[in-house]
């Protein structure tokens, strides 16, 4: 995609003014880093970080059947949700492979919000539109909605300083949401994130995004808040073993082999991909997504082959990076079942050099309670 067709979020000017390095990502010009990925990563682990994730897609569904429409397209079960609660889910095709991973928010029984990956918006919107036809209304609200993630052990303290409503957000359970006013902006705040830390993700009108962004940075200044880019977002999510669509999961992988069986409710009514997933479960699958850490000197990267101890190919690395919080190098990858047990010695083919690694338990990083 050429530079001049890239879209910009409402916060583009803020990033440029901070001299962020901007890169094309999912059709948007996004900040990959401001000061440095390590520094931003550690700010989120130790204090707070602020992410512009306005490129994510937001679908608003309204009507009595909206919940049922969503339920027919996802692997998780919306009947568990009450007003103001959300869940993480996969959406699969008829083959049971993953077309996107989503967060589904129930605002009211007849009003729902679905957040999809920016890279999948062009497939997810028509996919949901087709299912909604004649049953409920659906609007792609992505362009008029900004999304800012405030993450880290001091995230809620920052929110408390940004507005009176922020002070009560600590009462919001994980995966719950409510309206709040922060930095003078009307927002929808959800206790969710993609970093492995406590924190919130905040939706607001695109027109209010700059006021909210600046207000949160100002409120958090004394607490050590830092704006954080896509690079830190990636290392943070990898340490927390949160899947990245396009790397760890895609339409060639199914949720069962990807370690996302917990999002698949095969006991619920029919949904797209259910029959295929039932068949996969019955037949068993021959590969599994595992976490590993490097033993030898090397950094695993997306696409590097994985080998067993004797050098036979057993799979592929889907994500890999030095882990700034852990002082080691980690990765995720699919390996043939039989090589997936914790403690198994494997090797990563780092551009022709076989470097030793070991399968480890995940998440790699767990925040202190």
């Amino acid at each position, binding site marked *: 995609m050429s530079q001049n067709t890239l879209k910009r979020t409402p916060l583009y000017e803020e990033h440029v003014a901070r001299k962020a390095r901007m890169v094309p990502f999912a059709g948007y010009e996004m900040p990959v880093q401001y000061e440095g990925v390590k520094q931003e990563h550690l700010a989120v682990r130790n204090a707070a970080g602020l992410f512009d994730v306005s490129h994510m897609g937001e679908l608003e569904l309204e009507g009595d059947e909206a919940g049922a429409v969503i339920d027919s397209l996802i692997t998780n079960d919306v009947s568990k949700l009450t007003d103001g609660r959300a869940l993480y889910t996969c959406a699969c095709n008829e083959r049971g492979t993953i077309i996107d991973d989503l967060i589904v928010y129930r605002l009211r029984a007849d009003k729902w919000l679905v957040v999809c990956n920016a890279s999948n918006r062009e497939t997810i919107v028509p996919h949901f539109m087709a299912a909604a036809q004649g049953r409920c209304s659906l609007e792609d609200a992505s362009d008029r909605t900004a999304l800012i993630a405030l993450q880290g052990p001091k995230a809620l303290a920052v929110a408390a300083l940004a507005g009176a409503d922020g002070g009560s957000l600590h009462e919001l359970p994980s995966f719950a949401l409510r309206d709040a006013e922060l930095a003078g902006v009307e927002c929808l705040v959800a206790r969710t994130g993609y970093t492995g830390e406590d924190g919130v993700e905040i939706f607001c009108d695109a027109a209010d995004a700059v006021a909210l962004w600046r207000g949160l940075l100002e409120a958090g200044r004394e607490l050590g808040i830092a704006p954080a880019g896509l690079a830190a977002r*990636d290392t943070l999510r990898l340490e927390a073993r949160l899947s990245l669509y396009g790397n760890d999961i895609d339409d060639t992988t199914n949720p069962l082999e990807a370690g996302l069986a917990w999002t698949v409710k095969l006991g619920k009514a029919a949904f797209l991909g259910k029959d295929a997933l039932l068949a996969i479960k019955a037949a068993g699958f021959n590969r599994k997504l595992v976490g590993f850490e490097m033993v030898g000197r090397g*950094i695993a990267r997306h696409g590097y082959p994985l080998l067993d101890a004797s050098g036979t190919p057993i799979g592929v690395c889907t994500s890999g*990076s*030095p882990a700034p919080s852990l002082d080691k190098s980690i990765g995720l990858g699919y390996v043939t079942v039989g090589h997936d047990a914790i403690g198994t010695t494997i090797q990563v083919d780092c*551009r022709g050099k076989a470097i030793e690694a070991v399968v480890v338990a995940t998440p790699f990083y767990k925040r202190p309670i």
Partner: protein
Amino acid sequence: MSHDIKSDRVYTSDHEWAKTEGDAIVIGITAYAVQQLGDITLVNLDVAEGDTIEAGKPFGTVESVKTLADLFAPIAGTVVRVNKANLEERPELVNDDCYGAAWMVAIAPTDPACLEGLLDPEAYAVLLDGAH
């Protein structure tokens, strides 16, 4: 725009520097390269003392959190020193002192005039201006 460029050496379009020290030519990467890479987390030098090396051939890699960059030999010759132990132990040296302590290899050149084809500091500055 001003750049961190040393006047006592020459440069390549791959953002490496080369500096004559006695009979050998010392090779490293430039401040611009370091800035583009970010936090350096791994340096692999795949040559040993006594190896012959061809111009344009990779001799190692520098990796940051997000990316990997190949190191290319700017000149042909025989490797006489490798800063291996230092850089493998402390890759962050590259961030701290890319023009000094974080030199990569020293090569005794096959052709004593080999540096003439590389970029002088002014030409390298022009190259960097074009990169912005």
